[in-house]
């Protein structure tokens, strides 16, 4: 069961910092393409002690950046999405198959899929992320080479698959066979790393809505990943972002696809259970 000591500590810390609503954002309502209403604010599940309300990263951006997500043409990720769509029907590997060969129609087969990842895979005996599942299909079903876990082909495919769940609430399972992995992720979230001895919680729970130098800190929710980062001018994979964060604490970071990051991804996703899948989002 959930370690009560962790929850107590998180609870006390939350009380000490003034729990503000995401006061500094410019708009509260996200409606995409004029008709898709998104949930960007939702009460957290009872297994999340440190925050009472989950806010999407969209809520922390200024209105110019928020506006870039309102319309799929305006969204700078649109070109990467087109590439991902093309990739769906691309034959690759020894079996002469494309994704479409087995899954056929993208929208029909992938609707709701992104919303429940990461999830336990019985055959693998482990929690799989969307990326690890995509690579599993490629190597086991298509006889193709695995893609770089956080590379461009992967983020393009993650983006088009995520689009088929866009708007649906994130709903990852934290109990059952996934529970141990989830506990491991929770422990990582509250562990201080690196020379700077910072945990995820120090910034994203204790100081969400504050500024660290010129960055406006969000809660670090991942419902918007893969995210188009203006800084890099491309889609960024969620574990690539984890790498960056831990590297910024001046620690030796874990690698994308590692067990540690899979556990962390499951836990962080659960902190945002109920928020709409927002990928591909636009972030600084």
């Amino acid at each position, binding site marked *: 069961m959930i370690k009560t000591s962790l929850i107590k500590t998180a609870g006390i810390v939350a009380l000490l910092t003034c729990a503000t609503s995401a006061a500094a954002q410019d708009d509260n309502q996200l409606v995409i393409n004029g008709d898709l209403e998104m949930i960007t604010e939702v009460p957290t599940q009872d297994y999340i002690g440190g925050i009472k309300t989950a806010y999407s990263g969209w809520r922390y951006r200024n209105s*110019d950046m928020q506006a870039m997500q309102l319309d799929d043409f305006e969204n700078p990720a649109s070109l990467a999405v087109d590439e991902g769509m093309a990739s769906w029907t691309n034959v690759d590997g020894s079996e002469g198959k494309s994704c479409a060969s087995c899954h056929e129609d993208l929208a029909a087969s992938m609707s709701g899929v992104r919303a429940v990842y990461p999830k336990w895979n019985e055959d693998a005996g482990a929690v799989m992320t969307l990326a690890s599942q995509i690579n599993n299909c490629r190597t086991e079903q298509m006889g193709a080479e695995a893609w770089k876990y956080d590379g461009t082909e992967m983020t393009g495919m993650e983006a088009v698959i995520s689009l088929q769940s866009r708007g649906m609430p994130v709903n990852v399972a934290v109990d059952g066979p996934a529970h141990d992995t989830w506990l491991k992720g929770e422990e990582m979230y509250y562990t201080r790393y690196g020379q700077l001895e910072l945990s995820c919680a120090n910034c994203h729970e204790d100081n969400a809505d504050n500024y660290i130098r010129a960055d406006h800190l969000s809660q670090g929710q991942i419902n918007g990943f893969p995210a188009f980062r*203006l800084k890099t*001018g491309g889609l960024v994979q969620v574990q690539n972002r984890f790498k960056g964060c831990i590297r910024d604490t001046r620690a030796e970071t874990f690698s994308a696809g590692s067990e540690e990051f899979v556990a962390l991804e499951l836990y962080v996703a659960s902190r945002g259970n109920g928020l709409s899948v927002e990928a591909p989002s636009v972030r600084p």
Partner: protein
Amino acid sequence: MKFSRRETMLMALGASAVAMLPMPAMADVDELIAAFTGGAEVGEGGLTLTAPEIAENGNTVPVEVSAPGAVSIMLLATGNPTPGAATFNFGPLAGSQSASTRIRLAKTQNVMAVAKMADGSFVQVTQEVKVTIGGCGG
């Protein structure tokens, strides 16, 4: 440290050479404006520049220029190593003399627009855009 007379002379030459280097960006901006206006006087009014006060990231800053009745509008990022951004020339089927685009700003600076009006006159407008360098944005 003792310098020989030769070394001292060379150092002095070097120093004056550096002093003679032009201030890069500002000279470029004046040249670009002069090339656009042919040296004519530049007034104000009738030209709108819309840009964010603070750009969370300098890579992609949305800007809009609008000058009803203009023939063309030049957009400059005066603080960039190469200040030129775009020159919009409106054709006979332009629905309005306005356009939006996204530009890169290397640092906090003045974004400037200069419009050539149908009667041959020129107007300009400037707005400062702050560009923040992140903290732990990775």
